[in-house]
C-alpha cells in the first residue's frame, strides 16, 4: 500500500497539469435523476406525479433570495399553488444545449429581477396556455371556458383537472408565441409583491441546507491548495518527499495558471487571466491535507510584483494625479471659470484594495471517471464554471455535469471560477476519485479579487452665493475594467466641468464587489460635495437639491429623458429620507448627521434602484465612534417580495459599516498582509448599528436591482456624519486607520487632507 501510494505521489508530482490521465475507475452518477413519470414543460418546470412542481431557477442563491422571488414571478403567471413549489437550480448543460433558454444565468450586478422578470412571467404564462390547451382537448371544452387556479384547471360547472393530469399531453403542445399570450394585470397579482416567506427558510435554520462545502461522495478525497502568494508568481518546485510519510497524504498536484473564468472568452479571443500557479495537497481528510500543505516546502518565483506594495502603488497614483490624464467628460470652460470663482476648494480622496470575504470558503468538488466529469461548486456563474471545467478537463461540454448547490455568500467574489479550474486539474491528476477542494480562509484572503485602489483629486469653484460653478475630478485607479462612469456619469450638470480618468496595472486581478465602483465614487463625489456645502455655509441637502436640477440638463443631451428621470427619483427619495430622519433638527454635542443620495444608473444599461440615506453617529472625542441610527429609502421599481428586499437593504447597511470601519487589504512585497479575520475585522453585533429604519417606495416601474444600492449611500452618509459630529474629514479608508478625535479649535482637520501614501 505504501509503495502504491508513493509511486502515485511521484507520478502526480512529475507531471504538470494538462496531461490527461487515463480514466481508471468508474463511478455512479450522482446527479438526481428525473423520475420517469415526471413531465418537463418548456424547460422551465417539471410537473411531478404528486402535483408538486419543480421550477428551474436560472441564478445562484447567494442569500439574495432568488429561489423564492423568481419562483413567485413564474408561479404568478402559471397559477401555481405555492405549497406545491419545489425549486431547483438550473443545469448549465441543458441551458447550453437549448441555446440559452434560461436567458440570464450569471448572478451579478443585482440583475436577476431586471433580466428575468419578463422572461419568467412569460414562460409561466406560456406553460399555462399549454396546459389549458391540453385540458380543452381532453375535456372537449373551449380554452376560453377554462380557468386556472392553484395548480388546477377549472372546467365549466366546477370540475377540476390537476396540472399533473394534463402535463403529459401539454408537453406535446408547442408553446404559444409570446405575442399571443396575455400577461396578468398587476392588480391581480397574488404572489408578486407579497411578503412570502423564503422557500428555504426552515432548512437555513436547521443546518440541513447543502452548500458546496457540504458535498459528500463515497471514497472522496480532500484537497487544500496554495496559489503563488505573490500575484503573478510562478511555481518553481516543491519537495513532496518532505510530506510523503505524513498520515493520509495521497499526493501533491501541480496546478497551472490560467483564466479565472470570470466572463468567458473575451471579445479579442483572449481570456481573463487571474489564476496563478498553485500546489494542491490531496489527503484522506481536510485536516491532514491542510497540515501537509503547511509542511510542504515550496519554491516560488515571485515575478514582476515581488517588490510592489500598496504604498508604492499609492505613491505612483498620487504622482500621476499631478499630471493631466485622458478626459472622459467635459462641459463649458473649466479652466476659465475656476479663475473667476469666488472660492476654490480642493481635496484628494483615496480608496484602498478590499476583499469581499463571503463566509463560505471557496470550494469545489470534481470527479473524473469513465462517465465524464462531475463538478459541484458554490459559484455565482455556473454557466461559465461549466465551460471552464470542460475546457480544463479537455472534454466536450456534454460530458461535463455541473451541479449548483446553495452558495454561502457571493458579494462578487464568486463571479470568478478559478477554483473550478483548480479542482478539475486535481481531479484529472487523480482520476476515479471524487476530490473536494476547500480553500482555507487564509488562502481566500491571500487570493482575493479586489476592487481597484483609487485616488480621486477634486477641485471645485463656488460663486458668491455658494453655487457650484466649476467641477474638476481626476481619477486614477488600479487594474479594473473601464469604470470611468463612477466619476463621469454624475447626475449633475455643473456648467463647467472636466473629468479625467486613467488606470494603471496593479498586481491583483480585478473583481466586482458588492456596491461596485459606486462605493468608491459615490462616497468620494458626495464626500467632496459635503465639503463644498460646509465651505459655502450651506445645508448639504440644499446643495444636493440645487445640483439635482432638471433645468440644468442640457436640452440637446442624448438620453435627456433618462437624465431627468434620474433626477426626479433622486429628489424624491432625498426628500423622504429627510422627513424620516427629521433632517435639520438639532443634535447634542458629539453627535452628527450625514446624508447621501444616488442611483446606480451611471452606466447605461445598469438599471438598479435609487436610494437615499441619513446616518447619525456619536463621537466620544477620545476616538470612539458609535453609529446610532441609519435611515434608508429605496426606490427599486416594482417590489417582488418586500421582506426579501428589506433584507437586502439591511445587509447593505452592515456591509457599508464594515467597509467604512475596516475595509482594507494591504499589499506588501506583492502579497496580501491580512491573513484572516484577526487582521481584517468586520462589523459584528457589538459594532453593528442597533437602530435601522428602511422604507421601500411603492412603484409600478420595471423591477430593478436591490442588493447594492444602499452600500455607497450609507457609507457616504456615515462618513459625512463624522465630520458633522465634530470629527475629522475622512478622505481615506478605513476608519480604523484614523484617529476620530474632535477637530481643533480653529476648525482645521485633525488629519492631513491628502493621503500620505497610506491608502
Amino acid at each position: 500500500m505504501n509503495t502504491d501510494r508513493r509511486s502515485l505521489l511521484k507520478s502526480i508530482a512529475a507531471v504538470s497539469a494538462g496531461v490527461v490521465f487515463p480514466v481508471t475507475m468508474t463511478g455512479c452518477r450522482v446527479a438526481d435523476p428525473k423520475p420517469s413519470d415526471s413531465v418537463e414543460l418548456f424547460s422551465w418546470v417539471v410537473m411531478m406525479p404528486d402535483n408538486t412542481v419543480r421550477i428551474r431557477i436560472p441564478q445562484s442563491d447567494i442569500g439574495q433570495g432568488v429561489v423564492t422571488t423568481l419562483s413567485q414571478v413564474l408561479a404568478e403567471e402559471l397559477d401555481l399553488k405555492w405549497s406545491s413549489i419545489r425549486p431547483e437550480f438550473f443545469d448549465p448543460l441543458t441551458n447550453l444545449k437549448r441555446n440559452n433558454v434560461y436567458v440570464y444565468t450569471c448572478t451579478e450586478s443585482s440583475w436577476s429581477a431586471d433580466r428575468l422578470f419578463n422572461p419568467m412571467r412569460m414562460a409561466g404564462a406560456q406553460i399555462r396556455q399549454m396546459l389549458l390547451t391540453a385540458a380543452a382537448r381532453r375535456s372537449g371544452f373551449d380554452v376560453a371556458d377554462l380557468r386556472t387556479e392553484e395548480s388546477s384547471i377549472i372546467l365549466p360547472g366546477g370540475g377540476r383537472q390537476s396540472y399533473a393530469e394534463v402535463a403529459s399531453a401539454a408537453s406535446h403542445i408547442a408553446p404559444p408565441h409570446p405575442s399571443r399570450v396575455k400577461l396578468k394585470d398587476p392588480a391581480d397579482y397574488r404572489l408578486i409583491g407579497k411578503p412570502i416567506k423564503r422557500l428555504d427558510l426552515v432548512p437555513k435554520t436547521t443546518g440541513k441546507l447543502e452548500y458546496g462545502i457540504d458535498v459528500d461522495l463515497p471514497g472522496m478525497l480532500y484537497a487544500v491548495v496554495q496559489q503563488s502568494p505573490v500575484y503573478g508568481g510562478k511555481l518553481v518546485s516543491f519537495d513532496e518527499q518532505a510530506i510523503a510519510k505524513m498520515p493520509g497524504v495521497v499526493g501533491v498536484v501541480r496546478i497551472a495558471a490560467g483564466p479565472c473564468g470570470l466572463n468567458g472568452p473575451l471579445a479579442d479571443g483572449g481570456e481573463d487571466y487571474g489564476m496563478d500557479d498553485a500546489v494542491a495537497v490531496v489527503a484522506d481528510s481536510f485536516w491532514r491535507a491542510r497540515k501537509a500543505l503547511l509542511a510542504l516546502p515550496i519554491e516560488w518565483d515571485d515575478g514582476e510584483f515581488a517588490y510592489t506594495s500598496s504604498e508604492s502603488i499609492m505613491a505612483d497614483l498620487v504622482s500621476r494625479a499631478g499630471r493631466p490624464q485622458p478626459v472622459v467628460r467635459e462641459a463649458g470652460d473649466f479652466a476659465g471659470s475656476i479663475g473667476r470663482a469666488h472660492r476654490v476648494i480642493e481635496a484628494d480622496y483615496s480608496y484602498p484594495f478590499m476583499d469581499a470575504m463571503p463566509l463560505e470558503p471557496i470550494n469545489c468538488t470534481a470527479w473524473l471517471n469513465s462517465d465524464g466529469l462531475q463538478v459541484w461548486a458554490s459559484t455565482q456563474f455556473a454557466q461559465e464554471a461549466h465551460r471552464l471545467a470542460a475546457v480544463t478537463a479537455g472534454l466536450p461540454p456534454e460530458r461535463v455535469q455541473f451541479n449548483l448547490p446553495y452558495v454561502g455568500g457571493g458579494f462578487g467574489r464568486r463571479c470568478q471560477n478559478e477554483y473550478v479550474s483548480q479542482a478539475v486539474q486535481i481531479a484529472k491528476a487523480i482520476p476515479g476519485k471524487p476530490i473536494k477542494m476547500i480553500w482555507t480562509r487564509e488562502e481566500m484572503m491571500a487570493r482575493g479579487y479586489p476592487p481597484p485602489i483609487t485616488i480621486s483629486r477634486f477641485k471645485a469653484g463656488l460663486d458668491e452665493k455658494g453655487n457650484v460653478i466649476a467641477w474638476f475630478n481626476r481619477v486614477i485607479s488600479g487594474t479594473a475594467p473601464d469604470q470611468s462612469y463612477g466619476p463621469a456619469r454624475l447626475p449633475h450638470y455643473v456648467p463647467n466641468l472636466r473629468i479625467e480618468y486613467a488606470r494603471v496595472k496593479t498586481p491583483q486581478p480585478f473583481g466586482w464587489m458588492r456596491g461596485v465602483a459606486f462605493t468608491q465614487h459615490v462616497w468620494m463625489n458626495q464626500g467632496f460635495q459635503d465639503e463644498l456645502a460646509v465651505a459655502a455655509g450651506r445645508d448639504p441637502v440644499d446643495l444636493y437639491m440645487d445640483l439635482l436640477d432638471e433645468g440644468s440638463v442640457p436640452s440637446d443631451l442624448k438620453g435627456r429623458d433618462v437624465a431627468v428621470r434620474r433626477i426626479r427619483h433622486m429628489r424624491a427619495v432625498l426628500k423622504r429620507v429627510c422627513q424620516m430622519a427629521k433632517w435639520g433638527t438639532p443634535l447634542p454635542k458629539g453627535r452628527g448627521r450625514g446624508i447621501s443620495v444616488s442611483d446606480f444608473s451611471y452606466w447605461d444599461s445598469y438599471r438598479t434602484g435609487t436610494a437615499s440615506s441619513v446616518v447619525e453617529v456619536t463621537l466620544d472625542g477620545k476616538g470612539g465612534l458609535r453609529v446610532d441610527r441609519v435611515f434608508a429609502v429605496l426606490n427599486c421599481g416594482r417590489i417582488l417580495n418586500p421582506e426579501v428586499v428589506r433584507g437586502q437593504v439591511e445587509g447593505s447597511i452592515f456591509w457599508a459599516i464594515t467597509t467604512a470601519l475596516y475595509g482594507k487589504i494591504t499589499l506588501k512585497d506583492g502579497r496580501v498582509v491580512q491573513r484572516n479575520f484577526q487582521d481584517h475585522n468586520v462589523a459584528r453585533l457589538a459594532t453593528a448599528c442597533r437602530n435601522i429604519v428602511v422604507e421601500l417606495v411603492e412603484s409600478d416601474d420595471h423591477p430593478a436591482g436591490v442588493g447594492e444600492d444602499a452600500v455607497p449611500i450609507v457609507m457616504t452618509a456615515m462618513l459625512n456624519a463624522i465630520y458633522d459630529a465634530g470629527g475629522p474629514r475622512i478622505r481615506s479608508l478605513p476608519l480604523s486607520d484614523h484617529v476620530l478625535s474632535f477637530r481643533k479649535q480653529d476648525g482645521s482637520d485633525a488629519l492631513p487632507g491628502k493621503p500620505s501614501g497610506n491608502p
Partner: protein
Amino acid sequence: MVQALLASGGLHQFSVWIIILTPRLPRAQKDCQFTAVGSVCQMGSIMMRIELKINGSTMPAEVDDDTPLLWVLRDTLKLKGTKYGCGIGQCGACTVIVDGQTARSCSLAATAAVGLEVTTIEGLSANGDQFVQKAWQDIRVPQCGYCQSGMIMAATALLGKKLFPTDEDIDREITNICRCGTYDRIRAAIHAAANGRT
C-alpha cells in the same frame, strides 16, 4: 486527563476554549502512515480512537489527536450543519454547545471533547421547531444562511444562561460574523425567542 477552560479575553474580546491536553498513551502500534490507530506519527500527531457524546448519542471516531472537533463532526460523523468559516475562532460559524457553554469547534481538539456533552445544530430539534429556530423563522433572519447554525447555537447557549438577555448581553456574547448582514434580525430574534418561550 483533559481540561477545558472557558477563557474570555484570551483572543481579543472573544470567548475561546483553551485546551490543556495531556497526551494519552497510544493503545496500539500500527503503521502510522495511513489510517493507523494509536501510532505516533510525524509532526507529533497521534491517531486515536475516541468516543464522543453528540446530541445524546455516543459516536465513535478515529482521529489524529490534534484534529479539531469541527472536522470530526463534518467529515467523520457527517454532521454538516456545523460550518467552517475561518478556522481560528473568529467567525463562530463552527459554534457548538459543550456542556452548556458555546465552543468554537474549529479551535477545540476533538479529543478534548471526550466525556463532555456536545450539541450541534442537528441536536436542537428534528424538524426545526426548537424555540430559537422558530424565532429565527418568524423574524426571517437568514439570507445565505451559512452563519446561521453558529448564530443559533450561540443564541441558544445565551438563552440557556439568561432568561431575558439585554442588548448588551447580546453584543458581548454573540461575537459571530454574518457577512450578509443579518445582525438586526438576529438581535430581534433573540428577544423574540426570550419572550416567546413557553
